[in-house]
Each structure stands twice: as C-alpha cells, then as structure tokens.
C-alpha cells in the first residue's frame, strides 16, 4: 500500500491505495470522479485522457502512485460552475457526440491540443492529433468541427485580451 496525495480539480486529495492501482481507478473509485472513462485494456482508446501537470495523458496507463504529488484536471474540473468550458460548449453546439462514452477523453485531448497550438489549428492537424482517441459513433466529422470552432474562439478571445491589456 502507498499513501498518495495530489491536487485534483483544485482540491487537495489523498488516499491509501495498492501500488498497482491505476490512476483512473483512483479517480473513479476513490474520488467518485466517474467522468473519466475506461474503454480498452490496451492504452489505445483515449477515453481516459486527463491532464497531469498540464499535459494530456492516459489515466489508464499510469499508476496512482506515479501521479502522487502532481496536479490533475479531469473533465469534472473544466466547467466554471454552471457555465461550460468553450470546448464543452463547442461539442454541444456542433453535435460532437452521440453516445458520449469517448467524449470526456475527446474534450480533454482537445483542450490540450488547443493549448499546444496557440496559433490555431487546421483540419489535418486536428485529425492527426486525435490519433489516440477513438470514437465508435460519430465518424469524427463533428468532433473535428467542434475542436476547430473552439480553437478559433479561444484564439480570438485571447487576441482581444492582449489588445485590451
């Protein structure tokens, strides 16, 4: 057993876990944050994507013990109270989901992708960047549309902020 502690969605949490506990199970079972999903056994589907110290990673391929001491954001940490994050809003607006199983991972991957491309995104880049996120419903078109729209919105609002400053 190991004592682990980390900051999850701005809250300090700790717990006692078996060393073999995967981070995704710690989030879901110990913290009740069931928005992060498990869709495969092979580290390929991306439905478990969260941010660890600001970077998108697969929570099913990291031990909780490895994540001890880090700062984590899950899908539950994106919205600001009742107002959705720009990327969540865009998925809703562009119908970027059907069953919704892949959606938390898609959105966390999209936020990370947009953060790493402050100059904006094009369709080919979005599709390549989604290599690690599998969706069995949508055929991806609307997911790509949603991410492009969110990226545009974030880019123009940060440009406005820069101008105002």
């Amino acid at each position: 057993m190991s004592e682990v502690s980390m900051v999850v969605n701005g809250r300090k949490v700790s717990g006692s876990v078996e060393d073999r506990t995967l981070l995704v199970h710690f989030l879901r079972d110990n913290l009740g944050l069931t928005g992060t999903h498990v869709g495969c056994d092979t580290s390929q589907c991306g439905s478990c994507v969260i941010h660890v110290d600001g970077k998108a990673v697969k929570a099913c391929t990291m031990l909780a013990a490895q994540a001890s001491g880090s700062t984590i954001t899950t899908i539950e940490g994106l919205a600001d109270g009742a107002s959705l994050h720009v990327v969540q809003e865009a998925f809703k607006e562009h119908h970027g989901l059907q069953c919704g199983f892949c959606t938390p991972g898609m959105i966390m991957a999209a936020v990370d992708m947009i953060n790493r491309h402050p100059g904006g995104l094009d369709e080919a880049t979005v599709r390549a960047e989604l290599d690690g996120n599998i969706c069995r419903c949508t055929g991806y078109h609307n997911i790509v549309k949603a991410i492009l729209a969110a990226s545009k919105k974030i880019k123009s609002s940060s440009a406005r902020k820069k101008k105002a400053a």
Partner: protein
Amino acid sequence: MYEVTYHRASSVSEAVKLAKAGEDSKFLAGGMTLIPAMKTRLAAPSDVVDLRHVKEIRGIKVSGKKVTIGAGTTHADVAGNAKLVRVCPAICKLASSIGDPHVRHMGTIGGSIANNDPAADYPAAMLALDATIITNKRAISAARFFKGLFETTLKDGEIIKEVQFTAPAKCGYAKFPNPASRYAMTGVFVAKGKEVRVAVTGAGDDGVFRAKALEKALERKFDASALDGVSVSASNMMSDIHASAEYRANLVVVMAKRAVAAANA
C-alpha cells in the same frame, strides 16, 4: 495486474540500489510499454522503480553537431526541441510520429530503446546515426546494443543514462505506420555524414538492421533516383496479418526513397 511494489528514485544511484533490493525489479520510465504489459499480465515485476523524477537523465544538449539526449526525455520534448530540430530534424520528426500526443507526453527515448520493439521507431535512428548508448556502467555503440527482437545488451539493473551522436550533414526518416497501432510497419532512417547509413525498423524478422545494398547505391549518388531498380530481399522480412514479407521488402525501398527526399529537402 499482479501486485507490485512501487518505488520512486531521485537519482541514478538510488534507482540502481532500489532495483537491486527487489526480487525481480523493473525500471519504470514513461510506462507506455511496461504498464500495458503489466495490465495484461505479460509482465509481472515484483517491484517497479520510477525514473520520472531522476532529473539527471532528462533533457537535450546540443553543442555544435554533438547531441546528447537524456534517457528520460519524452518523445514530445524530443519532437519540440528547437535546438535539435536545427541540427537533426529527422529525429524530431520521428519522435512526433510515435503513437499519439498522450503517449508522447509520457514515453521516453530510454524506455523505447531499452524495450527494442521490432516495430519501434527510435532503434532505426540510433543505428543510422551511429549513436552511443551511455549506461551507468559503460558506453555501447548502437550496432552492439540492439540484439534481435526485444533484446538488448543491457544487463539486469543497468540503467540507460543518455544517448549521444554527432548530427550528420543530412538525415531523413520515413515511416509507413501500421494503420491500427501506428507503430512502424516499415520505417527507414537515412543519415549522410562521412558515410551513408540506412537503418530499417518494423520490417526485419530479427529487429532493426542496416540495409547495406541501399547504402551502397546512395554512396554513389545521394538521391532518391539512385534507388530506382534496387531491391531488398524478402527472405529476412517479417510476415504477419498486416503485411507479407514481400510487401515489407518493397516498403523498405519506398520508405528509403522518401527518407532521402526528406533529407535533401
């Protein structure tokens, strides 16, 4: 996953000590190979020693043409390093083609070469760049380091600290990704320094290898057209549900042409 005991090391010497104390310890770097293997019970170490907090094995140094990459450097950091891309763009491109963004945020060059998956990308770069692999015990040339499928000359408890190479005048990498896994179904790294070196991954039935016939043709003229009509024997190629040996043999030449074109661009 079977039970395991987790340890976190903060230095190479501490990691070596921790690994020695366990019955069947394994180093844990990015975990992008080891953890999936543990989940499916293909690997069942008694102990894992986490190397992610060992600062001395992370980071990239470029001094003139001399390049040193710490074993714990992630694929994302290799892909995005501004100094490295100036002297050896092909290795940055290679790193950016590994897996997906989430895998690249965790997976490391040291873990990749220690694992020596016959379809992994980095072994081709190490062999073509004539890299030296520095461990806590010795310096090993890439040619001696890689031994067949998933085999290296690393001994139990030996840690890769860094890899070193001299950036060649020109280099290129071209990969035909497996449509399902994105690993290389055939990947060819071409380097033109004092000599031309062509290393192939994903295709050979005994892991990464140098394509001497292609090297000879490119020594005469370093241009994709020099490979017109040159063929590679299918006899030592891998054959599986994804591609036959003949198909892979053909891909070696096609990818080599693309790699040369990239090197000359």
